[in-house]
């Protein structure tokens, strides 16, 4: 530790931050040295992002001190912190989709002519250089809104790199990235490290944290549980200190293979984006996963099941009967449910109550003469709150006052009340902590066992491997992999996700 203190870049002492009585950060000490990658982990809501936002001057701390190079500093806002050399890559991307890549990168610090007017040429060349520096080739004039998520994350990173900060905080930058992209990012980390910058790296992917960090801090309930060198942690140990107990197995046991189980659901259609035919089916008791790099047509394929378009000549069968689905209402009529990926925009009603949120798809099931049977609604909702152990103080509590994980439970819960035959889950554990993840995995398994056709799309490789009985891998709008049982490994998924062999066309996949 002694040699650390000589090169300490930033130190926070006794930071406290309260939101309306909730102690988000409760007396935390945290530091980062030159050339150090400091991993920060903890459950959802542990206070990681809040701590970092205090560091960046976005929140002002209720108590505590921040030192840069041993000098105490107070930041009135992010621009202060940025001038002092702190950069932050936000967890929720801080990019404006309607503006160009170049402008997003320089935003807040536009290059200017001597006359004071913005210099667009300089903006373009500057951002182009930075992007190329991290191995990304995008036209700086492209609108960010038309980029895939992974590229957006890269733009977000460029945005911070352009500021030449001394300490850079990366708050869950890897969530939308593929393996390759993560390794590019880690190369950037190493480069920054070599140049003596400090890095704070927050992630829920513990293997990544263990792989890249020098030191790791674990937070829980707004406090620091432990800070130690990365070498002294194993994944099990990390999880144990995060959740405060031993964690035997995150994933529930899979169902044994049963080739002759009846087919619950089958899909056949031509994907718009590739004009290729895609077909698959789900057997009883089976959890079907979709994998591959992001943006290879998985979302189009799966959303079309719910009547949101994306496929032509669509033919869906439920228990052998053909069903026509042109919109979500048709889909629901046939018992199809979809849990969207973007919880805040597509999933919850933030200003409505827990009760109203959970009741949304099924209000029509509980009506008499156009009016809602309120007692029944209340009890149905209470049962679901209990079943998913959603932490609320009252059914009339607004959804926006819940934590992210609990919000996710609302989104899943409302479809469980609907009691679907087929459920499509898009990124069901995005931004959800380990304990909640475990619960959601159990739930998925339970649904499958109860005869629901479960289809999961996730960018988390471990999740695919741990949860799914069968995994379909897509690449460029084609099915390029169909893996089952022990064949589901990281290597096989990776191989399939870069393969160009259209299995449906070759007749190798149903």
């Amino acid at each position: 530790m002694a040699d650390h203190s000589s090169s300490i870049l930033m130190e926070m002492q006794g930071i406290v931050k309260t939101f309306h009585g909730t102690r988000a950060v409760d007396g935390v000490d945290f530091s980062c040295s030159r050339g150090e990658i400091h991993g920060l982990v903890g459950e959802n809501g542990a206070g990681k992002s809040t701590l970092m936002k205090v560091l960046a001057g976005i929140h002002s701390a209720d108590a505590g001190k921040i030192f840069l190079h041993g000098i105490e500093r107070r930041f009135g806002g992010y621009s202060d912190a940025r001038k002092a050399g702190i950069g932050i890559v936000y967890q929720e991307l801080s990019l404006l989709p309607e503006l160009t890549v170049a402008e997003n990168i320089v935003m807040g610090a536009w290059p200017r002519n001597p006359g004071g007017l913005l210099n667009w040429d300089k903006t373009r060349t500057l951002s182009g250089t930075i992007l190329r520096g991290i191995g990304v080739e995008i036209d700086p004039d492209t609108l960010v809104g038309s980029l895939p998520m992974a590229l957006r994350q890269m733009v977000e990173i460029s945005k911070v790199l352009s500021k030449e900060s001394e300490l850079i905080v990366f708050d869950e930058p890897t969530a939308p990235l593929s393996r390759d992209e993560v390794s590019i990012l880690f190369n950037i980390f190493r480069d920054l490290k070599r140049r003596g910058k400090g890095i704070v790296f927050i992630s829920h992917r513990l293997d990544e944290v263990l792989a890249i960090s020098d030191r790791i801090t674990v937070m829980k309930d707004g406090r620091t549980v432990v800070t130690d060198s990365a070498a002294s942690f194993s994944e099990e140990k990390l999880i144990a200190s995060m959740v405060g107990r031993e964690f035997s197995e995150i994933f529930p046991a899979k169902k044994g293979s049963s080739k002759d189980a009846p087919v619950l659901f089958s899909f056949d259609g031509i994907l718009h984006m590739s004009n290729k035919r895609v077909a698959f089916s789900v057997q009883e008791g089976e959890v079907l996963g979709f994998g591959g790099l992001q943006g290879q047509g998985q979302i189009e394929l799966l959303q079309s099941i719910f009547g949101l378009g994306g496929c032509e000549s669509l033919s869906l069968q439920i228990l052998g009967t053909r069903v026509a689905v042109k919109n979500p209402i048709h889909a629901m009529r046939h018992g199809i449910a979809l849990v969207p990926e973007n919880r805040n925009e597509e999933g919850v009603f933030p200003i409505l109550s827990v009760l109203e949120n959970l009741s949304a798809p099924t209000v029509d099931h509980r009506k008499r003469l156009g009016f809602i049977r309120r007692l029944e609604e209340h009890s149905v909702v209470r049962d679901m709150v209990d079943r998913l152990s959603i932490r609320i103080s009252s059914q009339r509590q607004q959804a926006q006052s819940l934590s992210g994980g609990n919000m996710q439970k609302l989104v899943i819960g409302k479809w469980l009340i609907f009691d679907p035959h087929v459920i499509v889950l898009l990124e069901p554990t995005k931004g959800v902590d380990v304990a909640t993840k475990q619960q959601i995995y159990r739930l998925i398994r339970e649904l499958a066992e109860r005869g629901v056709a479960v289809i999961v799309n996730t960018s988390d490789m471990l999740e695919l491997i741990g949860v799914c009985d069968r995994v379909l891998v897509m690449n460029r709008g084609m099915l390029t992999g169909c893996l089952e049982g022990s064949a589901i490994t990281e290597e096989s998924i990776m191989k399939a996700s870069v393969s160009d062999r259209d299995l449906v066309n070759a007749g190798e996949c149903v």
Partner: protein
Amino acid sequence: MEKAKTLAPRHELADMLSRNAIFFLLFLLVVAMFVLGEIVAHGFLSLSHIGAILRTASFLGIVAIGQTLVVLSGGIDLSVGPIITMGNVFICMFMNGLDANNVWSLSAIILLGLAFGSINGLGVTYLRISPLVMTLAVGSLVTGLTLIFSQGAPKGLASPLLREIGVGNLFNLIPAIVVTWAVLSALVIALLGRSVYGRKLYYAGANLKAAALSGIRVRLVKIIAYALGGACAVLSGTLMAGYTRDAFLGIGNEYTMWSIAAVVIGGTSLTGGKGGYVGTIAGAIILVLLESLLTVMNMPEAGRRIANGLIILIMISIYFRKRNRG
């Protein structure tokens, strides 16, 4: 969960109190204004004057039913003024002063209101035009049609029955129109609080995408809100014809902004999905009461405008202080 359950009752009570605090506040404001009026002008608090105020508030209150529904759905309706005038002009034309025409005239006028309201709704949902400008355009359209059909000179008369509703009193005390308003209010409050449609309206207003992805026909829900908005506006115009007997062009003009002000003062959020009609009732009464108070105080036009602006500012600062405190 055990913990949550035992905690629940106290939370619910505190919840309810804070939820309803605003209604107490609005109620207090109404009382204070009445008392102030009585101090300024003896007779302000007489039953007949209260009746007169409630009657005027009824016209506004009924338009504001539609405005509340539209605002809850996440929109706004600037066409209510022209649609009120259309209702006022056309009902007199239809009825022509004869009770025999009542049934078909009323049905026809309500259909007209529903039709133009639906045009608003269709434009907002299918053509994806912002409600602010869509309803503005429809307002212009409606004004033109009203002028063309009346050739600038409204014809006909309200029927005796309508006239009775417009100016008559029940038991020599309560204006019949206030009773009409009360009945409609009860229906709307039940619709919003208890019905499936009402709930869907909140869903659509609170998060359109999430509602659509929960299998709610958000377009239909919105179109119905606008259609009901149109119906409420023509109904209000019709009742105004009962009050004035003849039709007047431009009778609805000021109701567009008034109805929005009533909704806002009543605490409904202009971003949709939050609020209800109870507040709007208070909002309507407060606005009319203010107008009346300013009349007896002999306030010049300039002062009236300022007072109207101030009361809105004061109300929103109360709502938002509360919200910011959490």
